[in-house]
């Protein structure tokens, strides 16, 4: 094989593409991985604050795609507005364009471990999930222990909620409660079958199952809850992890490194001038990619690309790989309104009933804890959920989620915190700022001490419209990675599942071509690791 011919060229370094690239490289295929941006991660990147401001500029002037093979795309980011200037230590921020939390059990964690990429990054437990209800922040009783210790619930309510949690963590398929209700609205199911009262229904629906509206169907919601309940205890009490240094973008970099370690070639920050089908001129190579400032064309047998990179001239040869994940199909990504706000910490939330002040921190933290008020504590990471209609000026039909991260996630300088707010946006929503400003105000008012902190140091609002996924019936030459879920705890897992589907699909195509070199029996071949800690001296 020549220097410029590859089995697979992957376009875009989003999480899905990066995982697929790592798996293909590890399976022995020759991979080139390109991104027009000078940074890794694509629309899922983690950026420093100065990079984020550049990102805003390039997306507002719409020069992001300049003259390239992909100009036909409609604008992906609209209604962008920001306030606040570049803050000090701007390079110490690692701000995620795709905020997410990771269930401790699931495809992403399995892939991180299976590929060895887990060693490149750091992870923290999500400390708290809270729900905004009747004008205040309440902790969500997410485990049996939480329920047991909860002081807001009556004994009867505790028993009912306990019964539901037992049901949801077990084999609920085929149980009489569920029969015929699989697709009925989850919130009604909770009321009708478990007699839960309204505020408990709200907490379970939006903060335990992460439903976006009261109409979300029961079965997928139950599947999610079961997965989260099973996840808790694996790494600690919380079912969720947060990736340090900005989450998804950092994890994507890790998979890219894994791919490079196995021979993947990385070229970033160069415009792709043309993608063409060259299979007529000779049998093999079939596709070629021209990069600006690079003399030789790169050629390949198969292109794997993010929907952002579908070239207009080859749209009919592109097929979106479908992953069999029910979740992904359920909430096929619609537009999302997002807000990123930087503010002065700390983040203060009501105590979790499961962590009474005495047992909350380690011994060293004890002093700090006791100087705080009786009922509140500082946290470094939290999710705050706003159910529909929970605040004035907010959306009455869909829920908003807020991910809060402090300095402990290594994503912001000392003392600074980041709030990521997201809410599904409808076609009629034209201003991200109008949509999200009430949530930002309510968030800052309820998690920080009153005072100047309740005004963010920097805030950015925008609407994100995922690109359309092409479909084609002809034999695919271009495999397009599907859009991932936008649900906070589902997004990275769905990207991982999609990557695996893309991997197997790519394998099929490459093997039908009789390509030697690559083969795979599993997504991640076993790691031959040694326990380095046992090295003798």
């Amino acid at each position: 094989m020549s220097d410029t011919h590859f089995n697979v060229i992957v376009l875009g370094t989003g999480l899905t593409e990066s995982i697929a690239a790592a798996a293909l490289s590890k399976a022995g295929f020759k991979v080139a991985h390109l991104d027009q941006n000078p940074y890794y991660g694509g629309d899922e990147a983690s950026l420093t604050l100065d990079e984020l401001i550049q990102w805003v500029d390039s997306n507002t002037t719409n020069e992001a795609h300049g003259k390239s093979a992909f100009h036909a795309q409609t604008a992906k980011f609209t209604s962008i507005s920001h306030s606040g200037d570049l803050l000090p230590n701007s390079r110490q921020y690692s701000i995620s364009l795709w905020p997410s939390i990771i269930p401790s059990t699931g495809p992403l964690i399995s892939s991180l471990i299976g590929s060895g990429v887990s060693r490149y990054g750091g992870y923290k437990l999500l400390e708290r999930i809270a729900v905004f209800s009747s004008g205040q922040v309440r902790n969500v009783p997410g485990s049996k222990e939480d329920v047991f210790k909860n002081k807001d619930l009556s004994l009867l309510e505790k028993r009912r909620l306990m019964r539901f949690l037992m049901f949801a963590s077990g084999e609920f398929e085929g149980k009489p409660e569920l029969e015929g209700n699989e697709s009925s609205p989850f919130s009604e199911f909770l009321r009708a079958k478990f007699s839960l009262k309204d505020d408990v229904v709200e907490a379970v629906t939006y903060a335990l199952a992460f439903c976006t509206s009261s109409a979300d169907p029961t079965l997928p919601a139950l599947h999610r809850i079961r997965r989260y309940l099973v996840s808790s205890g694996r790494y600690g009490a919380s079912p969720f992890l947060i990736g340090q240094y900005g989450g998804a973008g950092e994890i994507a970099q890790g998979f890219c490194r894994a791919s490079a370690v196995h021979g993947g070639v990385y070229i970033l920050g160069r415009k792709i001038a043309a993608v063409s089908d060259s299979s007529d001129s000779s049998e093999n190579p079939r596709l070629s990619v021209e990069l600006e400032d690079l003399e030789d064309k790169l050629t390949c047998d198969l292109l794997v690309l993010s929907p952002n990179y579908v070239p207009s001239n080859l749209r009919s040869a592109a097929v979106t790989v479908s992953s069999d994940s029910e979740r992904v199909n359920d909430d096929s990504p619609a537009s999302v309104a997002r807000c990123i706000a930087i503010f002065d910490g700390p983040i203060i939330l009501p105590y979790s009933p499961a962590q009474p002040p005495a047992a909350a921190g380690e011994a060293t933290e004890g002093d700090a804890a006791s100087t705080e008020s009786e009922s509140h504590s500082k946290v470094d990471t939290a999710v705050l959920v706003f159910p529909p209609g929970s605040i004035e000026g907010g959306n009455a039909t869909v829920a908003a989620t807020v991910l809060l991260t402090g300095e402990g996630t290594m994503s912001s300088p000392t003392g600074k915190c980041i709030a990521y707010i997201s809410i599904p946006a409808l076609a009629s929503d034209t201003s991200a700022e109008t949509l999200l400003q009430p949530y930002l105000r309510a968030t800052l008012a309820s998690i920080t001490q009153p005072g100047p902190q309740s005004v963010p140091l920097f805030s950015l609002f925008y609407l994100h419209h995922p690109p359309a996924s092409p479909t084609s019936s002809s034999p695919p030459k271009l495999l397009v990675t599907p859009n991932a879920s936008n649900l906070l705890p589902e997004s990275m897992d769905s990207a991982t599942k999609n990557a695996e589907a893309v991997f197997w699909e790519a394998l099929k195509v490459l093997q039908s071509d009789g390509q030697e070199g690559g083969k795979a029996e599993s997504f991640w071949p076993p790691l031959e690791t040694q326990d380095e800690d046992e090295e003798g001296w």
Partner: protein
Amino acid sequence: MAESGSGTADKSVQVKLVLLGEAAVGKSSIVLRFVSNEFQANKEPTIGAAFLTQKCRLEDRVLRYEIWDTAGQERFHSLAPMYYRNAQAAVVVYDVTKASSLEKAKSWVKELQRQANPNIVIALAGNKLDLVQPSASSSGATSTPESEDEADDATATPGEAAAAGDQPESLRQVPRDEAEAYAKEAGLLFFETSAKTGDGVVEIFTEIAKKIPIEHILASSRGTGRPGAAGRTGGAQEGGVNLEENAAKSKDACNC
């Protein structure tokens, strides 16, 4: 978490060290020389791992280097920020027989000063010294031991064998004085090395070890940061999670 009393003597301090430099200057060879020379008896490096580890004893303290190779990502300037993240040391390598490689090294030093931790200890290493020395030094082990880890280096040195001329010194394109003066001015440690003969290689790592502010690393890793890159020590960190360790544990738990 309460490790203050035990001191640093028996606890090795983990130090992330990154390699930089133009393709084919011998980055991987230097590491392999360092890692395998010191540890003949040791197990082979981890297959498919993206970094090698090697302990370095220095008087009363032990450093555990976690050495990251570029994996070829330097070729199109596509090194991820993750690569520099938390690196406490860097070895920037150039080739004494190739003037342009020193220029490249200087630009990597700039990149480090921009991207990396401000306290990073940087060493500049002029490699392939054997090519410019009289033939006396041709004794050492030529090939580095088999280490599959270096599928790692897609840039594996092709042209090395080609340059065995008769008048070695004439091959030199970078005068020692010039490089040393630059290193001094930029505040870098400076060495000329031969990964082939082993000259100067271990010295790089021991001199870096002397300069690393270990107490500072220990202090900061006890707080929020994690030493090196890995979450491996993260278990001790507040709320930090080691994905692999706990995964193994839970696997064991099932096997009862």
